[in-house]
């Protein structure tokens, strides 16, 4: 039984609740590929995106429509009541009376939690500033479940582990499954100590290295993230680390046969195009899994009402 009204942060979820979502996603996956469904017929999803997004917005819209539901949209934040000075809280109060479920992306951290406080409809957080993006974490977990295995997983998280909240949420969620996590990052972008100690307290085997070569032969999953240029006050510092972790096909010769490579996308130059054709690449599959996972989330919060 799923009783969560809102989807705000991974910290709100127990392992059992995550498993319900992943199971539902598996059930709905055939409909993500085009099989007809009227599961959410007559339901309306409001998409409130105060910040640009392509994948997330389109995948929520696709998920809703594939299940027979409809979507309503804000044309752009500039054309919305926010530009007239309306608070987000008031906008949410109004829109949650129009729609059955609201997906929100906003620049301020904590905006989704506040929205949930005032909304009459379920709120799904599609990214709040540098904060949470729980459906991304859920689709990452789903990809690992479908393409590898969640129990006894050995995973390497690569790239910006300091600011990258995607990896923080994922690491936290994986702690519920007892994963072995290898952290691979440049010195300047190491995972913050409090997160590491939190993971260790939860029984995760955490190790750290700056070298990709240290992990590539023994992990089940390589989770690669983009190093964001805007994080560096000094551009020359960025140049030093920018090309550090570039996955190429030759680099994968020592990898396990069934090792998979994931990336939340968009990628810049972390993964060479020649990796796309290898048996390891799963990042496009991962992007597709956003559809069944968002279908699952939408149908569960609508049922839970």
């Amino acid at each position, binding site marked *: 039984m799923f009783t969560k009204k809102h989807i705000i942060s991974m910290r709100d979820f127990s392992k059992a609740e995550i498993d319900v979502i992943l199971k539902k996603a598996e059930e709905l996956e055939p409909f993500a590929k085009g099989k007809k469904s009227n599961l959410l017929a007559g339901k309306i999803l409001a998409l409130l995106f105060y910040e640009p997004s392509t994948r997330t917005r389109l995948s929520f819209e696709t998920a809703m429509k594939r299940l027979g539901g409809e979507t309503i949209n804000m044309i752009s934040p500039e054309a919305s009541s926010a530009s007239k000075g309306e608070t987000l809280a008031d906008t949410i109060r109004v829109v949650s009376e129009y729609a059955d479920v609201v997906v929100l992306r906003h620049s*301020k*951290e*904590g*905006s989704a939690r*506040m929205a949930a*406080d005032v909304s009459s409809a379920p709120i799904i957080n599609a990214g*709040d500033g*540098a904060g*949470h993006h729980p459906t991304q974490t859920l689709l990452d977990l789903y990809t690992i479940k479908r393409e590898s295995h969640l129990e006894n997983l050995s995973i390497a998280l690569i790239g910006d582990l300091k600011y990258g909240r995607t990896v923080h949420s994922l690491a936290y969620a994986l702690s519920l499954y007892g994963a072995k996590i290898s952290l691979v990052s440049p010195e300047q972008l190491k995972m913050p100590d*409090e997160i590491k100690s939190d993971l260790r307290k939860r029984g995760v085997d955490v190790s750290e290295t700056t070298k990709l070569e240290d992990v590539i032969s023994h992990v089940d999953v390589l989770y690669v993230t983009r190093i964001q240029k805007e994080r560096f006050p000094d551009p020359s510092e960025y140049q030093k680390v920018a090309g550090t972790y570039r996955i190429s096909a030759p680099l994968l010769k020592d990898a396990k046969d069934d090792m998979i490579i994931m990336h939340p996308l968009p990628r810049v130059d972390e993964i060479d195009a020649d990796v796309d054709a290898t048996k390891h690449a799963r990042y496009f599959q991962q992007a597709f899994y956003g559809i069944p996972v968002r279908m699952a989330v939408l149908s569960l919060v609508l049922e839970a009402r």
Partner: protein
Amino acid sequence: MKKELRVRPIKNGTVIDHIAAGQALNVLKILGIVGRTDAVVSAVTNVPSKAMGKKDIVKVEDRELAPHEVDKIALIAPSATINIIREYKVKEKHKVAPPNMIEGVVKCANPNCISNTKEPVTSKFTVDKHEKGVQLRCVYCERIISENIVEHLF
């Protein structure tokens, strides 16, 4: 030998005892006393203590602390005891206990948090006790404040 009193007893008011050494002035800051009251206030710092090694004590005359003020004290001096004094006698005595949740007391350290905008949001933190004192986690953005909580008071 008669025990020497560092600070004379007060007739009416509040004595906050067992404050972690060095925090007396921060307690005064939380109470909003500095520069804003005519009350007689005494603060003693680094008093030898059996239980704590060293402690601080604050005495505020003619003022009985309200519960919301006690909550705030617990954030920076979790072992403090509050003694309400009437006619030189301790009439009420209790230990402060950090609440599980605080609202409207601390400002989130994250400038990009929704609680630091014009939105109608009251700042809200969950309070976790740990070895060195308390740790606050913003309910909205989940930013943690574990040091210098006093600097984040409204």
